[in-house]
């Protein structure tokens, strides 16, 4: 266990050493911090509105201005960050569980099943995420759960499709054969011998899924099948202001900027994480292990 903590520290340090990794870690750290803080404190209550101060410009009392009902934009963005955090994390968890289950089935079963599953996955991938969300929202109503289910389903399929070649490569390798000769069970072989060798692909794909889930949240909320009205989220902030973009462009800039910066951070996070966790590309991991 001690070794694992040390490995984690080396990985974090290697990421920090690169500018892109530092950006990703700082933005994601801020995201976590703001989400936590927003639970107990925001500059204004979300329900505090001021009919005489709508579409207010940034000022000392409202740092990012006010929206169409005179609510504080910063407070809504802060509160929205926790909704988006939950959506991103759950999407990654669902996509990883679903995707890895599919990959495990693909590499463990016979070749006929494996090739058939590619066709099925390809067919399912062609269903747009939006359509899945729209269908789900009919019985369940618009909610964050619908976004997570739709994104988890779609990104899980994507993950399976992208992970399959590297998982197959590992599954047919001599080191997996060696592990089987040593008496390792199929489940053990998958999780400790095949999966770790797909980590570069897995880490990039999952962090991209987290980023894409934010974009999906914004899109689906705009279509009315995302988070329910009154629930703070970045997509919600965008939706309420985007109709007035030609009159009050600044109101759209703030949520748009937050989403953009965080999505970039998530993509860079995956990128630098991939380089940092692979002993082949990260010499620090070898020296200190």
């Amino acid at each position, binding site marked *: 266990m001690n070794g694992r903590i040390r490995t984690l520290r080396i990985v974090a340090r290697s990421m920090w050493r690169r500018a892109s990794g530092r950006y990703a870690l700082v933005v994601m750290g801020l995201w976590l911090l703001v989400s936590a803080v927003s639970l107990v404190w925001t500059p204004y209550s979300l329900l505090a509105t001021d009919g005489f101060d709508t579409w207010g410009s940034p000022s000392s009392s409202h740092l990012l201005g006010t929206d169409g009902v005179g609510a504080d934009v910063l407070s809504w963005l802060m509160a929205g960050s926790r909704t988006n955090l939950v959506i991103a994390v759950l999407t990654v968890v669902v996509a990883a569980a679903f995707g890895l289950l599919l990959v495990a089935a693909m590499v463990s079963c016979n070749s006929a099943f494996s090739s058939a599953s590619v066709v099925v996955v390809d067919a399912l991938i062609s269903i747009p995420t939006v359509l899945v969300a729209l269908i789900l929202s009919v019985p369940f109503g618009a909610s964050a759960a619908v976004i997570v289910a739709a994104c988890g389903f779609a990104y899980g399929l994507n993950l399976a499709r992208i992970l399959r070649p590297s998982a197959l490569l590992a599954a047919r390798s001599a080191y997996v054969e060696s592990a089987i000769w040593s008496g390792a069970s199929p489940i053990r072989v998958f999780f400790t011998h095949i999966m770790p*060798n797909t980590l570069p692909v897995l880490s990039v794909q999952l962090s991209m899924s987290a980023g894409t889930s934010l974009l999906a949240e914004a899109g689906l909320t705009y279509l009315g099948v995302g988070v329910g009205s009154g629930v703070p989220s970045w997509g919600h902030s965008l939706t309420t202001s985007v109709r007035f973009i030609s009159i009050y462009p600044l109101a759209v800039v703030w949520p748009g900027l937050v989403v953009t910066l965080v999505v970039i951070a998530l993509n860079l996070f995956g990128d630098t994480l991939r380089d940092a966790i692979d002993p082949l590309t990260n010499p620090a991991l070898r020296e200190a292990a």
Partner: protein
Amino acid sequence: MSATIRDLNISIGGRTIVGDVDMDIADGERVGLIGSSGSGKSMIAKAMMGLLPATARVGGSIEMGGRQVVDASDIDIADLRGRYVGMVFQNPAAALNPVMTVAQQVGLPLYLHYDLTSAERTERVGAMLAKVGLDEDVLPKYPHELSGGQQQRVGIATALVTSPHLIIADEPTTALDSITQRRIVDLLTSLVDGAGASMLFITHDFAVLHRATTRCYVLEHGGIVESGATADVLSSPQTGQARRLVEAARKLSLAAKETDHV
């Protein structure tokens, strides 16, 4: 551990890979299985561990230490794999997991078959590495940081760490240079003899076979064409296949001797 193979037949997709093979390995004996590529050597080794592909059809009998392996369930022969039978692979660079350290690699069979604390495991892994001539400082290293010879030493340590009763070595020296080949073969034989284990040594190289085994079987197109003491087969091969392999070994060892002087 002794192994007795009778009338072994293996076919995949209607094509016979191995036909009517009889083999015996006595306790503590080092036996060779020699044949050119594609003669079915590795298939016999896989059949002995019940690890043939699902599409393979197996007939005949394989007894390992008095237990029938053919048609046995995975659970029945689970302790054969890695516990009573150790396997040394052909290409050590490929047979070691690129993201596992030497310590994890060698410790895996111990972890799977013994109930040890991690300190006890590390101690036994360290002792095993010392036996194959590696220092403790390779423990945290990854396979790509080791030389080919070191990698195969790790492979041997992995196979022998559980003190198995039978070692199956599938072309363990093919991927190594001739000087390293000799060292690895000598290491393997001395460790096997020291442990009182048996060994099945699979190769296509008579020069290596002569050093590693006392008795051998010559395999051609999935059938045994000749068997006997390795020295006898090497000095007076009876069949065409054996003669060709001996001829090839002479040329190779001649070439090796020349390079020794360089």
